[in-house]
């Protein structure tokens, strides 16, 4: 169903709606507050749109926006209604709406589920954990051995990034975007770049697009290597864990040689690229990756051939497809549960339209499936870099253009980070600044998946399941 069909179909229903199509693939529907429940029900049940997020904009009046996406045709539907009092609770239509209600509704009442009975007890972990990880509080309710309930309390790292983005000039805002989550630096930089390009309706040259793809995939490589190593480490297979750690270090050093920063910071800027690229760097990337490729796959196979390894990962931390859909999970974690959705295919950006064919999926949704899928994505990333480099035949000169934003434009973009789908909404304001930036980070909707995955497992398996998800606390807390 195309965007015009959606408008026609909605018009037939005789609601008092206003339609506006912006940036080719965004349909803004203004709804009256008392009709929003009906419209949302139609969007979810009749049109089968994916629910993405809910957020409020406080410009002149307070409006609440419900964002849906049509992943087959690649457009967004934003249902907007104005409210002065409380936002309307949609959680009995869309389960995951309660997550967003906590952000927009001041009176939202959060209840901790309690488990009682003989042999029931609680184990509280965090916010300061053993080891080098970020803060978060986990409360396990256990009956004997199996976990009955897991409450995850996050937001320890809340810094107020969305609000801070409104005070920074658009020309240096990419620095702030990159620091929402350090692991997905390039993906966030990319999100900002395509956001500004979408607002200004401009495009960059093919070489720059290809180079951006290379950077995005390099980031994917070192993250997935760390993940695979982390899973092996939690099982106690130290040879594989240390080797993946070593490979990821090699990639980090390659990134440092290419961009001057181990996390490729300040490399992707809107309307251009901030680093030079030449034949020497191209050969460096090709040689390093070629020397690693066979090594990575041999170590990966080594882990799959170990019985003690398979014993731990198989049938551990299962999430069913129904629950994954209900929780709006995205990314590798969702694809492991047989949800066929990848932003690189549904909303292709940069070169992905040409190089990304098909989506990798697994069916059972356990730790092993996530491990296999991460291996596949890693392999894909190597191939994508090879393909993308063939598009670059000339040297790329560094170019950073001045951004001049006009007031009152809005846009919504999504990028596939290593963790899943990142959706950014932006509304431009005065003096070359934004007046509203909203991040729907992948970790935000994927974290509830962890508490579903651990049900029925024992507490010693929790670190393994957590590592197989490997969600970012930083981008969740913002």
């Amino acid at each position, binding site marked *: 169903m195309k965007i015009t069909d959606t408008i026609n179909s909605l018009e037939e229903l005789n609601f008092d709606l206003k339609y506006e199509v912006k940036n080719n693939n965004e349909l803004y529907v203004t709804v009256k507050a008392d009709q929003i429940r009906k419209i949302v029900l139609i969007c979810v049940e009749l049109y089968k749109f994916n629910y993405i997020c809910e957020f409020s904009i406080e410009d002149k009046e307070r409006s609440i926006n419900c964002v849906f996406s049509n992943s087959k045709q690649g457009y967004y539907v934003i249902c907007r209604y104005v409210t002065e009092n409380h936002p309307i609770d949609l959680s009995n239509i869309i389960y995951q709406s309660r997550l967003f209600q906590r952000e927009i509704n001041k009176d939202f009442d959060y209840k901790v589920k309690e488990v009682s009975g003989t042999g029931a007890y609680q184990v509280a972990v965090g916010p*300061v954990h053993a080891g080098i990880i970020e803060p978060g509080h986990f409360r396990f309710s256990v009956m004997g051995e199996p976990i009955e309930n897991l409450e995850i309390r996050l937001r320890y790292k809340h810094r107020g990034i969305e609000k801070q983005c409104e005070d920074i000039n658009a020309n240096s805002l990419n620095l702030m975007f990159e620091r929402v989550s350090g692991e997905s630096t390039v993906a966030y930089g990319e999100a900002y770049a395509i956001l500004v390009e979408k607002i200004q309706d401009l495009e960059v040259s093919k070489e720059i697009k290809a180079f951006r793809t290379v950077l995005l995939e390099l980031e994917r490589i070192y993250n997935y290597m760390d993940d695979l190593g982390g899973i092996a480490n939690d099982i106690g297979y130290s040879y594989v864990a240390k080797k993946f750690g070593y490979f990821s270090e090699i990639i980090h050093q390659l990134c440092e040689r290419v961009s001057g920063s181990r996390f490729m910071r300040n490399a992707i800027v809107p309307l251009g690229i*901030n680093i030079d690229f030449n034949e020497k760097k191209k050969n460096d990337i090709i040689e390093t990756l070629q020397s690693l490729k066979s090594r990575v796959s041999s170590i990966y196979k080594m882990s799959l051939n170990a019985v003690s390894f398979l014993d731990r990962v198989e049938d551990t931390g299962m999430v069913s497809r129904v629950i994954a859909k209900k929780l709006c999970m995205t990314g590798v974690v969702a694809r492991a549960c047989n949800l066929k959705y990848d932003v690189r295919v549904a909303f292709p950006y940069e070169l992905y339209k040409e190089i990304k064919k098909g989506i990798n999926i697994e069916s059972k949704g356990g730790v092993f499936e996530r491990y296999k899928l991460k291996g596949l994505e890693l392999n894909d990333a190597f191939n994508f870099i090879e393909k993308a480099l063939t598009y670059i035949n000339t040297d790329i000169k560094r170019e950073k253009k001045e951004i001049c934003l006009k007031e009152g434009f809005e846009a919504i973009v999504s990028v596939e980070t290593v963790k899943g789908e990142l959706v950014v909404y932006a509304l431009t304001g005065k003096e070359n600044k934004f007046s509203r930036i909203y991040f729907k980070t992948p970790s935000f909707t994927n974290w509830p998946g962890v508490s579903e995955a651990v049900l029925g497992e024992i507490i010693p398996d929790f670190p393994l399941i957590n590592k197989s998800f490997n969600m970012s606390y930083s981008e969740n807390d913002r």
Partner: protein
Amino acid sequence: MNNIFDRIKYGTETIKDPLKSNEFSYGKIIAKENVCDNCEKCTNICLVDAIKINTVGNCEHQVNIDNKKCIYCRNCIDICPKSVLNMSSDYKMAELELAGDKLREKIYNTFKRSLVLRVIDTGSCNACMSELSALQNTFYDISRFGINVAASPRHADGLVVTGPVTKNMKEALEKTYHAMAQPKIVIAVGSCAYNGGLFKEGDGVYDVVKNILPVDLVIPGCPPSPQAIIFGLLKLMDKI
């Protein structure tokens, strides 16, 4: 079995000296003298107020860059019309914050042989955490210097803090610090740990580490590379 074959085939994959010079690394920003014409373009573009221009005598301007505040984004270097600023590859920027007392020197001597650390993240962007865990890979392998990461603050000699201190993490940070046995040290890793970095003015940020706990060592960078962290820790242990 496969492990052994792989091990024989590829040998030890590590380096002897992790502190070798790295020409690709970012490092101190060095300003040329007597060239600056005080156009203030760099001070305006700097998001963390790391650049100060001092006017000395007869219209000579001197650019001072605070290494501990800088987030090494290179924007000031690009914008300078007279190319006053230059980035070196000297990552060895860690500095001891000796508050002028000899007692601290004595404390450092007790940690000369081994140092057990407790890492706590109080609101960083997780790049610093990633670099800290990279210290333990076979390439850098900080255990060879006698530095280890403990699971409990009770076993730790030093507290490594990354990121500005958020309102929600302030209590946890203080409790962790008080749970450690004396003598104890605090190490601030990353520019936001010492000075707040980009997040300084955020709604949820309470303060920076230096105003809450006595900081002994600052390792600047955004994020500091594993080499820079090793340099800082070895400096603290008086090994270099």
